[in-house]
């Protein structure tokens, strides 16, 4: 417990430092001391306006989205008992992409894109729930196979369907809209103003998921073991599915299909601090947020005044880091 608190405090300090860096960086750099002052006492100067109207909302959105993705990834990995699961594995991002691309093609306004993405994500959540009814509403503890593979395959198939539809939409899209659509697909936080919504949902999901964390540890032993230890397996699976899916839906709606955060952050933390979900879930929220905050700062400054989609940076940084972690861990054995 004391160890967990220490870890969370360290991650929170890192998050605060990343936040300060994100607010200070941009086409016009603001010294951190100045950022701190302007944050509490806006003075109407252009630096103050940039800070409050542009950088602060974007930093909050980045942190919220990153935290949501990492948390959703950790939850999906437990639900499917599969270390390779990520928030998008059940097709939520594919559905959101189809919705968002349709909106981009037909309407084009930022609000319509967000509405389209959220509708697509929700449609996928409902669809998977209906298709995987057997796994989420009936418990067969004597089945030779864990039910997780079937749920997983349902999601993978749905994701394949969405990806085919995405290709069709890209083929049909008018030239002028194509660039915006590709940006959205790569994952980008430059979209509409979402305020503190993702952050609020991050707090909510964490508050709802954390009390279940020890039951999640038990669930990792399998349905029969968990049920016989008094864990209501079906109810827990449904709650985890809904929480992880909603977190993913809001993250994707805000930032597009940003990859790797949801896979890499839970894994890296497991390698560093072990597999106790009570420690892991809050740590994921903090570390995921910090990581996306940092990568988004890089994405909007590295080729300034141009911006890169943040999803490209998370992949470019995430993949080698993750491979290094995996290989390093293998070598110590």
């Amino acid at each position, binding site marked *: 417990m004391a160890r967990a608190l220490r870890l969370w405090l360290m991650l929170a300090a890192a998050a605060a430092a990343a936040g300060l860096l994100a607010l200070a960086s941009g086409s016009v750099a603001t010294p951190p001391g100045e950022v701190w002052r302007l944050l509490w006492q806006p003075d109407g100067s252009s630096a103050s306006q940039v800070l409050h109207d542009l950088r602060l909302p974007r930093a909050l959105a980045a942190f919220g989205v990153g935290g949501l993705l990492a948390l959703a990834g950790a939850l999906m990995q437990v639900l499917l*008992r599969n270390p390779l699961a990520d928030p998008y594995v059940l097709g939520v991002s594919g559905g959101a992409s189809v919705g968002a691309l349709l909106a981009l093609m037909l309407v084009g306004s930022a609000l319509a894109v967000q509405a389209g993405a959220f509708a697509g994500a929700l449609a996928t959540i409902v669809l998977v729930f209906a298709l995987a009814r057997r796994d989420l509403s009936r418990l067969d503890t004597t089945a030779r196979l864990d039910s997780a593979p079937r749920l997983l395959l349902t999601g993978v198939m749905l994701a394949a369907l969405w990806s085919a539809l995405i290709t069709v939409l890209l083929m049909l899209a008018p030239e002028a809209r194509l660039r915006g659509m590709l940006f959205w697909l790569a994952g980008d936080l430059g979209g509409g103003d979402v305020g503190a919504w993702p952050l609020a949902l991050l707090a909510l999901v964490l508050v709802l998921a954390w009390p279940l964390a020890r039951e999640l540890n038990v669930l990792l032993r*399998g349905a029969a*073991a968990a*049920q016989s230890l008094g864990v209501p397996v079906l109810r827990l699976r449904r709650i985890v599915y809904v929480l992880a899916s909603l977190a993913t839906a809001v993250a994707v709606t805000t930032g597009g299909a940003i990859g790797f955060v949801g896979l890499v952050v839970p894994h890296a933390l*497991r390698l560093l601090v072990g*597999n106790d979900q009570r420690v892991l879930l809050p740590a994921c929220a903090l570390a995921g947020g910090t990581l996306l905050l940092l990568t988004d700062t890089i994405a909007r400054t590295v080729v300034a005044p141009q911006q890169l989609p943040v999803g490209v940076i998370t992949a470019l940084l995430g993949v080698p880091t993750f491979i290094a972690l995996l290989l390093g861990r293998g070598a110590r054995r």
Partner: protein
Amino acid sequence: MNKLLLDAKGLAVVAGTRMLFESLDLQVQRGELWCVLGANGCGKTTLLHTLAGLRAPRAGTLRLKGRPLAEWPPGELARQRGLLPQAQHDAFSTRVTDVVLLGRHPHLGRWAWESEHDRRLAAAALHAMDLDALADHDVTTLSGGERQRVGIAALLVQDPPLLLLDEPVAHLDLHHQVTVLDHLRRQARERGRAIVMSIHDLNLAARFATHALVIGPAGRLHQGPAESTMNEVVLSAAFGHPVAAERFGPRTVYVAD
């Protein structure tokens, strides 16, 4: 203390559409060690999961300490009976001690973390299963037999009066087959627990069981004290293979033709 723990009357158990057996009457008392014997697919696992309350029987009543199994709240039930499922698999690296500590789950409140007391119980269970040296190892690196002993240690810290084990000695080496079963027998004799387990090794079953339940072809059931129930006729019929019983010192040994 009431000695009767589990009381099944007219139990019918199905797998899918296949009737495994109907009308099983079974009474399990504290201090008894039951071995469930039978061919592959005869319903041993399904029976154990039914007795554990993980699935409802097709017909019949099932009571634990006089109270219908379905009426126990899951958390309370988990303090009364534990189940070792067959072949557990761990997808994530976790310390062996932490896996064993999961057995304390039903004893801890929602906000509680494992106490020193829980850790001592886990250490004792690890010692009983001869796993002291592996306590800090990653469970995914263990062999099949070692993982099996981790599962049994978790069941021991769960500390229920009724233990249901699905092939607890599968994957175990000769030495650990004997020491693990010996430990379970002592749990029954000295701690007043009741144990029901499925097992394929007739000689181990005969050596450690107080009672046997043999599931024969077409769901024909034989039960009673191990010595009299485990005879050549019943076993040969159950396995569809000639089995001979010979005296070997104080023990009976079973040899398949």
